[in-house]
Protein backbone atom coordinates (compact mmCIF):
# COMPACT_ATOMS: atom_id res chain seq x y z
CA UNK A 1 0.00 0.00 0.00
CA UNK A 2 1.30 3.37 -0.94
CA UNK A 3 2.31 5.38 2.06
CA UNK A 4 0.91 8.74 0.98
CA UNK A 5 -2.73 7.66 0.73
CA UNK A 6 -2.39 5.83 4.01
CA UNK A 7 -1.06 8.93 5.71
CA UNK A 8 -3.73 11.04 4.09
CA UNK A 9 -6.29 8.68 5.43
CA UNK A 10 -4.76 8.59 8.88
CA UNK A 11 -4.63 12.34 9.21
CA UNK A 12 -8.10 12.63 7.73
CA UNK A 13 -7.01 15.00 5.00
CA UNK A 14 -10.27 14.36 3.15
CA UNK A 15 -12.31 15.44 6.13
CA UNK A 16 -10.09 18.43 6.80
CA UNK A 17 -10.62 19.70 3.29
CA UNK A 18 -14.35 19.79 3.84
CA UNK A 19 -13.95 21.37 7.25
CA UNK A 20 -11.78 24.01 5.67
CA UNK A 21 -14.48 24.90 3.16
CA UNK A 22 -17.17 25.31 5.76
CA UNK A 23 -14.83 27.23 8.03
CA UNK A 24 -13.92 29.67 5.29
CA UNK A 25 -17.54 30.39 4.57
CA UNK A 26 -18.14 31.78 8.03
CA UNK A 27 -16.92 35.10 6.76
CA UNK A 28 -19.95 37.40 7.07
CA UNK A 29 -19.18 38.71 3.59
CA UNK A 30 -20.21 35.39 2.14
CA UNK A 31 -23.72 35.60 3.47
CA UNK A 32 -26.13 35.36 0.60
CA UNK A 33 -29.39 35.90 2.42
CA UNK A 34 -31.60 38.74 1.39
CA UNK A 35 -33.50 40.16 4.34
CA UNK A 36 -36.58 40.40 2.27
CA UNK A 37 -38.98 43.00 3.58
CA UNK A 38 -36.09 45.22 4.56
CA UNK A 39 -34.13 44.65 1.41
CA UNK A 40 -36.20 44.62 -1.73
CA UNK A 41 -35.18 42.07 -4.33
CA UNK A 42 -34.17 43.32 -7.73
CA UNK A 43 -36.89 42.34 -10.15
CA UNK A 44 -36.00 41.93 -13.77
CA UNK A 45 -37.60 44.21 -16.28
CA UNK A 46 -39.26 41.33 -18.08
CA UNK A 47 -40.60 39.76 -14.93
CA UNK A 48 -44.03 38.26 -15.38
CA UNK A 49 -45.92 39.15 -12.27
CA UNK A 50 -49.21 40.68 -11.40
CA UNK A 51 -51.31 41.60 -14.46
CA UNK A 52 -52.08 45.22 -15.09
CA UNK A 53 -54.26 47.06 -17.56
CA UNK A 54 -52.47 50.10 -18.82
CA UNK A 55 -54.22 53.34 -19.31
CA UNK A 56 -53.27 56.18 -21.51
CA UNK A 57 -51.22 58.34 -19.17
CA UNK A 58 -52.43 61.55 -20.76
CA UNK A 59 -56.10 60.96 -20.89
CA UNK A 60 -56.57 58.21 -18.36
CA UNK A 61 -58.51 56.20 -20.88
CA UNK A 62 -57.93 52.54 -21.14
CA UNK A 63 -55.84 51.27 -23.96
CA UNK A 64 -57.95 48.17 -24.29
CA UNK A 65 -59.86 47.84 -27.52
CA UNK A 66 -61.80 44.80 -26.34
CA UNK A 67 -60.38 42.65 -29.10
CA UNK A 68 -60.59 39.59 -26.86
CA UNK A 69 -57.22 38.31 -28.05
CA UNK A 70 -55.94 37.86 -24.55
CA UNK A 71 -58.94 35.81 -23.56
CA UNK A 72 -58.44 33.62 -26.60
CA UNK A 73 -54.77 33.20 -25.97
CA UNK A 74 -55.07 32.29 -22.34
CA UNK A 75 -54.48 28.57 -21.80
CA UNK A 76 -56.46 28.62 -18.59
CA UNK A 77 -59.34 30.67 -20.01
CA UNK A 78 -59.29 32.90 -17.01
CA UNK A 79 -59.76 36.23 -18.74
CA UNK A 80 -63.21 37.46 -19.51
CA UNK A 81 -63.60 40.67 -21.48
CA UNK A 82 -66.97 42.30 -21.58
CA UNK A 83 -67.48 44.82 -24.34
CA UNK A 84 -70.10 47.05 -25.73
CA UNK A 85 -70.29 48.79 -29.03
CA UNK A 86 -70.22 52.50 -28.54
CA UNK A 87 -73.12 53.86 -30.55
CA UNK A 88 -71.31 57.12 -31.22
CA UNK A 89 -67.90 55.98 -32.37
CA UNK A 90 -69.06 52.59 -33.56
CA UNK A 91 -66.15 51.08 -31.73
CA UNK A 92 -66.14 48.25 -29.32
CA UNK A 93 -65.33 49.40 -25.86
CA UNK A 94 -64.33 47.34 -22.94
CA UNK A 95 -66.82 47.43 -20.12
CA UNK A 96 -65.67 44.74 -17.78
CA UNK A 97 -62.47 42.85 -17.52
CA UNK A 98 -62.02 39.95 -15.15
CA UNK A 99 -58.74 38.28 -14.56
CA UNK A 100 -58.58 35.31 -12.20
CA UNK A 101 -55.07 35.49 -10.81
CA UNK A 102 -55.64 32.46 -8.63
CA UNK A 103 -55.56 30.28 -11.71
CA UNK A 104 -52.97 32.25 -13.62
CA UNK A 105 -49.67 30.56 -14.32
CA UNK A 106 -47.99 33.72 -15.55
CA UNK A 107 -47.04 32.29 -18.89
CA UNK A 108 -47.34 35.70 -20.50
CA UNK A 109 -49.30 34.54 -23.53
CA UNK A 110 -52.03 37.10 -22.89
CA UNK A 111 -49.59 39.97 -22.75
CA UNK A 112 -47.96 38.74 -25.94
CA UNK A 113 -51.31 38.57 -27.64
CA UNK A 114 -52.35 42.06 -26.62
CA UNK A 115 -52.22 44.28 -29.65
CA UNK A 116 -52.20 47.59 -27.81
CA UNK A 117 -49.82 46.85 -24.95
CA UNK A 118 -52.70 47.33 -22.63
CA UNK A 119 -52.57 44.08 -20.70
CA UNK A 120 -49.18 43.56 -19.25
CA UNK A 121 -47.64 41.45 -16.55
CA UNK A 122 -46.01 43.86 -14.19
CA UNK A 123 -43.09 43.38 -11.86
CA UNK A 124 -45.24 43.10 -8.78
CA UNK A 125 -44.74 39.74 -7.19
CA UNK A 126 -46.49 40.21 -3.88
CA UNK A 127 -49.91 38.94 -4.72
CA UNK A 128 -50.84 37.00 -1.63
CA UNK A 129 -54.41 37.60 -0.56
CA UNK A 130 -56.50 36.42 2.31
CA UNK A 131 -59.15 34.78 0.19
CA UNK A 132 -59.51 33.29 -3.21
CA UNK A 133 -62.13 35.80 -4.15
CA UNK A 134 -59.68 38.61 -3.66
CA UNK A 135 -57.59 37.07 -6.39
CA UNK A 136 -60.26 37.56 -9.01
CA UNK A 137 -59.26 40.96 -10.28
CA UNK A 138 -61.75 43.24 -11.90
CA UNK A 139 -61.04 46.06 -14.25
CA UNK A 140 -60.58 48.63 -11.53
CA UNK A 141 -58.07 46.55 -9.64
CA UNK A 142 -56.20 45.74 -12.81
CA UNK A 143 -55.95 49.36 -13.77
CA UNK A 144 -54.71 50.31 -10.36
CA UNK A 145 -51.88 47.92 -11.10
CA UNK A 146 -49.08 47.15 -8.75
CA UNK A 147 -49.64 47.90 -5.11
CA UNK A 148 -46.38 47.34 -3.31
CA UNK A 149 -46.92 45.91 0.11
CA UNK A 150 -46.21 48.25 2.95
CA UNK A 151 -45.12 46.59 6.13
CA UNK A 152 -46.14 48.23 9.32
CA UNK A 153 -45.46 47.20 12.80
Amino acid at each position, binding site marked *: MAIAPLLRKMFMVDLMKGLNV*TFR*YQDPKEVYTEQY*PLERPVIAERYRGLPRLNVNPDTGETLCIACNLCATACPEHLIAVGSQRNPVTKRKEMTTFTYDVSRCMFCGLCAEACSTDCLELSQDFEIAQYSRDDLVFDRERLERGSEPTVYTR
Partner: protein
Amino acid sequence: MLDYITSYFRSTVTPGQANNQFWALVYILIVFGGVSMIVMIMNWAERKALAHMQVRLGPMRVGPHGLLQPIADALKLFTKEDIMPAEADKPIFWFAPVWVVVVAFTGFIVVPFGVAHAVTDMNIGLLFMLGVSSLGVLGIVMAGWASNSHFPLMGSLRSSAQMVSYEIAMGLAVVSAVLMTGFLGTGMYGIGEGTASGTLSMIGIVQAQQAQHVWFVFKFFPVGLVAFVIFAIAMVAETNRTPFDLPEAESELVAGFHTEYSGLRWSLFMLGEYAAMVAVSSIAITLWLGGWMRPFASIHGPSIAIPFFWEHPELGVVDMISYLVPAGVLFLLAFFCFFNALRMPKHPAMRPQVIGLWALGVVMGGIGLVLLAPPVRDRIQDIFWFVAKIAVFLYLYIWYRATFPRYRFDQLMRVGWKVLLPVGLGVLLLTGLIGLSPELVTWIKGVMLWR
Protein backbone atom coordinates in the same frame (compact mmCIF):
# COMPACT_ATOMS: atom_id res chain seq x y z
CA MET B 1 -27.58 27.31 60.79
CA LEU B 2 -25.87 30.41 59.55
CA ASP B 3 -22.62 28.95 60.68
CA TYR B 4 -23.38 25.87 58.72
CA ILE B 5 -23.84 27.98 55.64
CA THR B 6 -20.91 30.30 56.12
CA SER B 7 -18.53 27.62 57.25
CA TYR B 8 -18.19 26.49 53.71
CA PHE B 9 -16.57 29.77 52.67
CA ARG B 10 -13.36 28.74 54.36
CA SER B 11 -13.41 25.39 52.68
CA THR B 12 -11.25 24.62 49.68
CA VAL B 13 -13.02 21.44 48.67
CA THR B 14 -16.30 20.71 46.99
CA PRO B 15 -19.47 20.92 49.07
CA GLY B 16 -19.89 17.21 48.76
CA GLN B 17 -16.49 16.58 50.30
CA ALA B 18 -17.09 19.23 52.89
CA ASN B 19 -20.33 17.43 53.68
CA ASN B 20 -22.29 20.63 53.36
CA GLN B 21 -25.70 19.75 51.98
CA PHE B 22 -26.87 23.32 51.69
CA TRP B 23 -24.08 24.37 49.42
CA ALA B 24 -24.35 21.13 47.55
CA LEU B 25 -27.92 22.03 46.78
CA VAL B 26 -26.90 25.51 45.76
CA TYR B 27 -24.23 24.07 43.52
CA ILE B 28 -26.70 21.69 41.98
CA LEU B 29 -28.99 24.55 41.17
CA ILE B 30 -26.13 26.58 39.79
CA VAL B 31 -24.93 23.72 37.65
CA PHE B 32 -28.44 22.99 36.43
CA GLY B 33 -29.02 26.63 35.60
CA GLY B 34 -25.60 27.02 34.08
CA VAL B 35 -25.88 23.98 31.87
CA SER B 36 -29.35 25.00 30.76
CA MET B 37 -27.90 28.38 29.95
CA ILE B 38 -25.12 26.79 27.95
CA VAL B 39 -27.70 24.72 26.11
CA MET B 40 -29.65 27.81 25.23
CA ILE B 41 -26.60 29.69 24.09
CA MET B 42 -25.51 26.64 22.16
CA ASN B 43 -28.90 26.54 20.51
CA TRP B 44 -28.47 30.07 19.29
CA ALA B 45 -24.82 29.66 18.44
CA GLU B 46 -25.48 26.49 16.52
CA ARG B 47 -28.03 28.17 14.35
CA LYS B 48 -25.87 31.17 13.76
CA ALA B 49 -22.63 29.32 13.14
CA LEU B 50 -24.34 26.72 10.99
CA ALA B 51 -26.08 29.45 9.08
CA HIS B 52 -22.90 31.32 8.42
CA MET B 53 -21.13 28.19 7.31
CA GLN B 54 -24.00 27.73 4.91
CA VAL B 55 -23.89 31.31 3.63
CA ARG B 56 -27.08 32.13 5.46
CA LEU B 57 -27.81 34.56 8.22
CA GLY B 58 -29.71 32.37 10.62
CA PRO B 59 -32.17 33.88 13.06
CA MET B 60 -32.27 37.64 12.68
CA ARG B 61 -35.65 38.80 13.77
CA VAL B 62 -36.27 37.77 17.35
CA GLY B 63 -34.02 40.08 19.23
CA PRO B 64 -30.84 41.51 17.79
CA HIS B 65 -29.27 38.89 15.55
CA GLY B 66 -31.87 36.46 16.79
CA LEU B 67 -30.47 36.45 20.31
CA LEU B 68 -33.86 35.86 21.85
CA GLN B 69 -34.64 33.07 19.43
CA PRO B 70 -33.99 30.24 21.93
CA ILE B 71 -36.36 31.89 24.38
CA ALA B 72 -38.99 32.36 21.73
CA ASP B 73 -38.57 28.76 20.70
CA ALA B 74 -38.81 27.55 24.25
CA LEU B 75 -42.03 29.53 24.67
CA LYS B 76 -43.36 28.11 21.45
CA LEU B 77 -42.55 24.57 22.48
CA PHE B 78 -44.10 25.03 25.91
CA THR B 79 -47.33 26.31 24.48
CA LYS B 80 -47.58 23.80 21.69
CA GLU B 81 -50.21 21.15 21.76
CA ASP B 82 -48.90 18.07 23.41
CA ILE B 83 -49.66 15.15 21.17
CA MET B 84 -49.50 11.59 22.36
CA PRO B 85 -50.22 8.93 19.76
CA ALA B 86 -53.31 6.93 20.55
CA GLU B 87 -51.47 3.67 20.20
CA ALA B 88 -48.50 4.73 22.25
CA ASP B 89 -47.46 3.02 25.43
CA LYS B 90 -48.44 6.02 27.50
CA PRO B 91 -46.47 5.71 30.75
CA ILE B 92 -43.27 4.92 28.93
CA PHE B 93 -43.93 7.54 26.32
CA TRP B 94 -44.33 10.05 29.11
CA PHE B 95 -41.33 8.85 31.05
CA ALA B 96 -38.77 8.60 28.26
CA PRO B 97 -37.99 12.30 27.78
CA VAL B 98 -37.91 12.87 31.52
CA TRP B 99 -35.45 10.07 31.85
CA VAL B 100 -33.23 11.45 29.14
CA VAL B 101 -33.06 14.84 30.79
CA VAL B 102 -32.58 13.52 34.31
CA VAL B 103 -29.77 11.28 33.23
CA ALA B 104 -28.08 13.95 31.17
CA PHE B 105 -28.03 16.30 34.12
CA THR B 106 -27.14 13.74 36.78
CA GLY B 107 -23.68 13.31 35.34
CA PHE B 108 -22.88 16.92 36.06
CA ILE B 109 -22.66 16.16 39.78
CA VAL B 110 -19.07 15.15 39.42
CA VAL B 111 -17.95 17.51 36.68
CA PRO B 112 -15.24 19.71 38.14
CA PHE B 113 -15.63 23.23 36.87
CA GLY B 114 -12.84 24.17 39.22
CA VAL B 115 -10.78 22.70 41.98
CA ALA B 116 -13.61 23.25 44.42
CA HIS B 117 -16.35 23.96 41.92
CA ALA B 118 -18.13 20.69 41.65
CA VAL B 119 -21.11 19.39 43.53
CA THR B 120 -19.04 16.61 44.88
CA ASP B 121 -15.97 14.65 44.10
CA MET B 122 -16.41 10.93 44.10
CA ASN B 123 -13.48 8.59 44.09
CA ILE B 124 -15.22 6.79 41.23
CA GLY B 125 -16.35 10.02 39.62
CA LEU B 126 -15.33 9.07 36.12
CA LEU B 127 -17.00 5.71 36.33
CA PHE B 128 -20.13 7.35 37.64
CA MET B 129 -20.09 9.84 34.81
CA LEU B 130 -19.63 7.22 32.10
CA GLY B 131 -22.23 5.00 33.62
CA VAL B 132 -24.80 7.73 33.92
CA SER B 133 -24.20 9.14 30.47
CA SER B 134 -24.64 5.74 28.91
CA LEU B 135 -27.95 5.36 30.67
CA GLY B 136 -29.31 7.98 28.33
CA VAL B 137 -29.73 5.36 25.66
CA LEU B 138 -32.37 3.77 27.81
CA GLY B 139 -34.54 6.83 27.43
CA ILE B 140 -34.09 6.76 23.71
CA VAL B 141 -34.99 3.10 23.46
CA MET B 142 -38.01 3.73 25.63
CA ALA B 143 -39.08 6.60 23.44
CA GLY B 144 -38.67 4.56 20.30
CA TRP B 145 -40.54 1.61 21.67
CA ALA B 146 -43.33 3.53 23.29
CA SER B 147 -44.08 5.53 20.17
CA ASN B 148 -45.36 2.36 18.58
CA SER B 149 -44.27 3.48 15.16
CA HIS B 150 -41.76 2.16 12.70
CA PHE B 151 -39.46 5.08 12.29
CA PRO B 152 -38.91 5.66 16.01
CA LEU B 153 -38.44 1.96 16.56
CA MET B 154 -35.71 1.78 13.98
CA GLY B 155 -34.15 4.92 15.33
CA SER B 156 -34.04 3.60 18.85
CA LEU B 157 -32.67 0.26 17.80
CA ARG B 158 -29.95 1.96 15.87
CA SER B 159 -29.28 4.12 18.84
CA SER B 160 -28.87 1.28 21.27
CA ALA B 161 -26.54 -0.63 18.98
CA GLN B 162 -24.54 2.48 18.30
CA MET B 163 -24.17 3.52 21.91
CA VAL B 164 -23.19 0.10 23.10
CA SER B 165 -20.48 -0.24 20.50
CA TYR B 166 -19.06 3.20 21.02
CA GLU B 167 -19.10 2.84 24.80
CA ILE B 168 -16.38 0.25 24.47
CA ALA B 169 -14.03 2.34 22.39
CA MET B 170 -14.75 5.23 24.70
CA GLY B 171 -14.01 3.12 27.74
CA LEU B 172 -10.68 1.97 26.37
CA ALA B 173 -9.63 5.53 25.65
CA VAL B 174 -10.70 6.60 29.11
CA VAL B 175 -8.78 3.80 30.78
CA SER B 176 -5.69 4.93 28.93
CA ALA B 177 -6.08 8.38 30.44
CA VAL B 178 -6.73 6.94 33.87
CA LEU B 179 -3.54 4.91 33.59
CA MET B 180 -1.64 8.06 32.87
CA THR B 181 -2.66 9.51 36.21
CA GLY B 182 -0.72 6.73 37.80
CA PHE B 183 2.53 7.48 36.03
CA LEU B 184 4.07 10.27 37.99
CA GLY B 185 6.89 12.37 36.71
CA THR B 186 6.52 15.55 34.74
CA GLY B 187 6.41 16.54 31.11
CA MET B 188 5.34 14.76 28.00
CA TYR B 189 7.44 11.68 28.54
CA GLY B 190 7.93 12.11 32.25
CA ILE B 191 7.97 8.55 33.29
CA GLY B 192 7.33 8.36 36.92
CA GLU B 193 9.14 7.03 39.86
CA GLY B 194 7.16 4.04 40.95
CA THR B 195 3.66 3.10 39.98
CA ALA B 196 1.37 5.13 42.11
CA SER B 197 -2.17 3.88 41.68
CA GLY B 198 -4.21 6.11 39.42
CA THR B 199 -7.42 7.79 40.28
CA LEU B 200 -10.94 7.77 38.91
CA SER B 201 -11.84 10.96 40.68
CA MET B 202 -12.51 13.72 38.18
CA ILE B 203 -10.75 16.27 40.33
CA GLY B 204 -7.97 13.83 40.97
CA ILE B 205 -7.38 13.38 37.27
CA VAL B 206 -7.04 17.09 36.68
CA GLN B 207 -4.79 17.39 39.68
CA ALA B 208 -2.65 14.61 38.27
CA GLN B 209 -2.27 16.62 35.07
CA GLN B 210 -1.41 19.64 37.17
CA ALA B 211 1.18 17.70 39.09
CA GLN B 212 2.68 16.18 35.99
CA HIS B 213 2.76 19.53 34.22
CA VAL B 214 1.20 18.08 31.13
CA TRP B 215 -2.26 17.73 29.64
CA PHE B 216 -2.84 14.10 29.02
CA VAL B 217 -3.57 14.80 25.38
CA PHE B 218 0.16 15.46 25.03
CA LYS B 219 1.37 12.81 27.43
CA PHE B 220 3.34 9.98 25.86
CA PHE B 221 2.88 11.81 22.58
CA PRO B 222 1.15 10.65 20.42
CA VAL B 223 -0.48 8.01 22.57
CA GLY B 224 -2.51 10.49 24.56
CA LEU B 225 -3.51 12.30 21.42
CA VAL B 226 -4.71 9.13 19.77
CA ALA B 227 -6.69 8.20 22.85
CA PHE B 228 -8.19 11.66 22.82
CA VAL B 229 -9.11 11.40 19.15
CA ILE B 230 -10.80 8.06 19.79
CA PHE B 231 -12.74 9.61 22.61
CA ALA B 232 -13.57 12.65 20.52
CA ILE B 233 -15.01 10.45 17.79
CA ALA B 234 -16.81 8.16 20.19
CA MET B 235 -18.33 11.05 22.04
CA VAL B 236 -19.85 12.43 18.86
CA ALA B 237 -21.34 9.01 18.26
CA GLU B 238 -22.43 8.80 21.85
CA THR B 239 -24.40 12.01 21.61
CA ASN B 240 -26.00 11.15 18.27
CA ARG B 241 -24.54 14.06 16.42
CA THR B 242 -23.51 14.30 12.77
CA PRO B 243 -21.87 12.32 11.24
CA PHE B 244 -23.22 9.68 13.61
CA ASP B 245 -26.75 11.00 13.93
CA LEU B 246 -28.35 7.84 12.66
CA PRO B 247 -30.92 7.48 15.42
CA GLU B 248 -32.52 10.70 14.35
CA ALA B 249 -31.35 10.60 10.75
CA GLU B 250 -33.58 13.27 9.40
CA SER B 251 -33.53 12.23 5.79
CA GLU B 252 -34.11 8.54 6.40
CA LEU B 253 -36.03 8.10 9.59
CA VAL B 254 -37.76 11.47 9.52
CA ALA B 255 -36.65 12.24 13.06
CA GLY B 256 -35.81 8.84 14.42
CA PHE B 257 -36.78 8.15 17.97
CA HIS B 258 -38.54 11.45 18.52
CA THR B 259 -40.69 11.37 15.40
CA GLU B 260 -43.85 11.12 17.43
CA TYR B 261 -42.87 13.65 20.05
CA SER B 262 -43.89 17.23 19.96
CA GLY B 263 -43.91 20.35 22.03
CA LEU B 264 -42.51 20.16 25.51
CA ARG B 265 -41.57 16.51 25.37
CA TRP B 266 -39.63 17.03 22.23
CA SER B 267 -37.85 19.98 23.75
CA LEU B 268 -36.88 17.79 26.69
CA PHE B 269 -35.16 15.45 24.26
CA MET B 270 -33.32 18.36 22.78
CA LEU B 271 -32.36 19.61 26.21
CA GLY B 272 -31.13 16.14 27.12
CA GLU B 273 -29.15 15.82 23.93
CA TYR B 274 -27.42 19.14 24.31
CA ALA B 275 -26.77 18.55 27.99
CA ALA B 276 -25.25 15.21 27.10
CA MET B 277 -23.03 16.98 24.61
CA VAL B 278 -21.80 19.28 27.34
CA ALA B 279 -21.35 16.33 29.67
CA VAL B 280 -19.20 14.24 27.36
CA SER B 281 -17.26 17.32 26.38
CA SER B 282 -16.47 17.91 30.02
CA ILE B 283 -15.26 14.35 30.38
CA ALA B 284 -12.91 14.90 27.48
CA ILE B 285 -11.75 18.18 28.92
CA THR B 286 -11.19 16.70 32.34
CA LEU B 287 -9.31 13.71 31.07
CA TRP B 288 -7.16 15.15 28.36
CA LEU B 289 -7.34 18.90 28.21
CA GLY B 290 -6.42 19.75 31.74
CA GLY B 291 -9.87 20.47 33.08
CA TRP B 292 -10.03 23.90 34.61
CA MET B 293 -6.36 24.64 33.96
CA ARG B 294 -5.48 27.42 31.64
CA PRO B 295 -3.14 26.64 28.75
CA PHE B 296 0.51 26.57 29.80
CA ALA B 297 -0.49 26.48 33.42
CA SER B 298 3.01 25.64 34.57
CA ILE B 299 4.55 28.80 33.15
CA HIS B 300 4.30 31.60 35.65
CA GLY B 301 6.84 34.15 34.55
CA PRO B 302 8.54 36.65 36.87
CA SER B 303 6.56 37.54 39.90
CA ILE B 304 5.02 40.95 40.07
CA ALA B 305 3.03 42.94 42.56
CA ILE B 306 0.52 45.68 41.93
CA PRO B 307 -1.15 47.03 45.05
CA PHE B 308 -4.82 46.29 45.40
CA PHE B 309 -4.85 44.56 42.07
CA TRP B 310 -2.30 41.80 42.05
CA GLU B 311 -1.12 40.53 45.37
CA HIS B 312 -0.26 36.94 44.65
CA PRO B 313 3.41 36.57 45.45
CA GLU B 314 3.47 32.98 44.27
CA LEU B 315 2.09 33.77 40.85
CA GLY B 316 3.85 35.50 38.02
CA VAL B 317 3.10 37.92 35.24
CA VAL B 318 1.79 35.23 32.90
CA ASP B 319 -0.73 34.30 35.51
CA MET B 320 -1.77 37.89 35.81
CA ILE B 321 -2.40 38.13 32.10
CA SER B 322 -4.36 34.92 32.06
CA TYR B 323 -6.40 36.16 34.99
CA LEU B 324 -7.42 39.11 32.87
CA VAL B 325 -8.59 36.97 29.99
CA PRO B 326 -12.17 36.38 31.21
CA ALA B 327 -12.81 40.08 31.52
CA GLY B 328 -11.07 40.60 28.22
CA VAL B 329 -13.33 38.11 26.48
CA LEU B 330 -16.39 39.85 27.81
CA PHE B 331 -15.06 43.20 26.71
CA LEU B 332 -14.50 41.69 23.30
CA LEU B 333 -18.08 40.43 23.22
CA ALA B 334 -19.26 43.87 24.27
CA PHE B 335 -17.22 45.37 21.48
CA PHE B 336 -18.80 42.95 19.00
CA CYS B 337 -22.20 44.00 20.23
CA PHE B 338 -21.44 47.66 19.71
CA PHE B 339 -19.83 47.01 16.36
CA ASN B 340 -22.78 45.00 15.11
CA ALA B 341 -25.22 47.52 16.49
CA LEU B 342 -23.58 50.08 14.23
CA ARG B 343 -23.80 47.70 11.29
CA MET B 344 -27.46 46.86 11.74
CA PRO B 345 -29.74 47.89 8.87
CA LYS B 346 -30.91 51.44 9.23
CA HIS B 347 -34.60 50.83 9.30
CA PRO B 348 -37.18 51.98 11.79
CA ALA B 349 -38.32 48.42 12.22
CA MET B 350 -34.87 47.46 13.40
CA ARG B 351 -34.67 50.14 16.06
CA PRO B 352 -35.59 47.97 19.08
CA GLN B 353 -33.09 45.42 17.97
CA VAL B 354 -30.33 47.96 17.69
CA ILE B 355 -31.16 49.27 21.14
CA GLY B 356 -31.21 45.72 22.43
CA LEU B 357 -27.81 45.09 20.99
CA TRP B 358 -26.40 48.22 22.60
CA ALA B 359 -27.92 47.16 25.88
CA LEU B 360 -26.43 43.71 25.55
CA GLY B 361 -23.06 45.25 24.87
CA VAL B 362 -23.37 47.38 27.99
CA VAL B 363 -24.33 44.34 30.04
CA MET B 364 -21.39 42.39 28.69
CA GLY B 365 -19.05 45.25 29.45
CA GLY B 366 -20.51 45.51 32.93
CA ILE B 367 -19.93 41.84 33.60
CA GLY B 368 -16.43 42.27 32.27
CA LEU B 369 -15.82 45.07 34.75
CA VAL B 370 -17.12 42.91 37.58
CA LEU B 371 -14.79 40.16 36.49
CA LEU B 372 -11.90 42.56 36.82
CA ALA B 373 -12.47 42.92 40.54
CA PRO B 374 -9.75 40.84 42.23
CA PRO B 375 -11.96 38.64 44.46
CA VAL B 376 -14.30 37.73 41.64
CA ARG B 377 -11.45 37.46 39.20
CA ASP B 378 -9.54 34.98 41.31
CA ARG B 379 -12.53 32.76 41.90
CA ILE B 380 -13.89 32.76 38.36
CA GLN B 381 -10.69 31.58 36.71
CA ASP B 382 -11.27 27.84 36.83
CA ILE B 383 -14.84 28.05 35.70
CA PHE B 384 -13.97 30.37 32.87
CA TRP B 385 -11.33 28.11 31.39
CA PHE B 386 -13.49 25.06 31.74
CA VAL B 387 -16.42 26.72 30.02
CA ALA B 388 -14.17 28.09 27.33
CA LYS B 389 -12.99 24.60 26.56
CA ILE B 390 -16.56 23.36 26.47
CA ALA B 391 -17.33 26.12 24.01
CA VAL B 392 -14.55 24.92 21.74
CA PHE B 393 -15.99 21.44 21.81
CA LEU B 394 -19.47 22.63 21.09
CA TYR B 395 -18.13 24.60 18.18
CA LEU B 396 -16.55 21.43 16.86
CA TYR B 397 -19.90 19.71 17.10
CA ILE B 398 -21.47 22.44 15.02
CA TRP B 399 -18.64 22.41 12.57
CA TYR B 400 -18.91 18.67 12.03
CA ARG B 401 -22.59 19.00 11.56
CA ALA B 402 -22.11 21.57 8.84
CA THR B 403 -19.56 19.53 6.97
CA PHE B 404 -20.04 15.81 7.11
CA PRO B 405 -22.48 13.45 5.52
CA ARG B 406 -23.98 10.76 7.65
CA TYR B 407 -22.60 7.29 8.08
CA ARG B 408 -24.69 4.33 7.20
CA PHE B 409 -25.61 1.98 9.99
CA ASP B 410 -23.28 -0.85 9.06
CA GLN B 411 -20.45 1.56 8.37
CA LEU B 412 -20.96 3.14 11.73
CA MET B 413 -20.67 -0.24 13.37
CA ARG B 414 -17.60 -0.96 11.34
CA VAL B 415 -15.93 2.25 12.44
CA GLY B 416 -16.77 1.43 16.02
CA TRP B 417 -15.72 -2.17 16.12
CA LYS B 418 -13.06 -2.46 13.46
CA VAL B 419 -11.29 0.85 13.77
CA LEU B 420 -11.82 2.48 17.11
CA LEU B 421 -11.83 -0.67 19.20
CA PRO B 422 -8.49 -2.10 17.97
CA VAL B 423 -6.86 1.31 18.04
CA GLY B 424 -8.20 1.83 21.55
CA LEU B 425 -6.80 -1.48 22.68
CA GLY B 426 -3.47 -0.61 21.12
CA VAL B 427 -3.41 2.74 22.82
CA LEU B 428 -4.21 1.18 26.15
CA LEU B 429 -1.43 -1.33 25.71
CA LEU B 430 1.04 1.33 24.62
CA THR B 431 0.16 3.56 27.52
CA GLY B 432 0.82 0.75 29.89
CA LEU B 433 4.05 -0.25 28.22
CA ILE B 434 5.46 3.24 28.06
CA GLY B 435 4.38 4.03 31.58
CA LEU B 436 5.87 0.87 32.95
CA SER B 437 9.01 1.03 30.85
CA PRO B 438 11.36 1.81 33.83
CA GLU B 439 9.99 -1.17 35.67
CA LEU B 440 10.15 -3.24 32.57
CA VAL B 441 13.74 -2.29 32.06
CA THR B 442 14.59 -3.16 35.63
CA TRP B 443 12.69 -6.36 35.36
CA ILE B 444 14.44 -7.36 32.19
CA LYS B 445 17.75 -6.46 33.76
CA GLY B 446 16.83 -8.52 36.78
CA VAL B 447 15.91 -11.47 34.68
CA MET B 448 19.17 -11.28 32.83
CA LEU B 449 21.18 -10.88 36.05
CA TRP B 450 19.42 -13.81 37.64
CA ARG B 451 20.49 -15.87 34.73
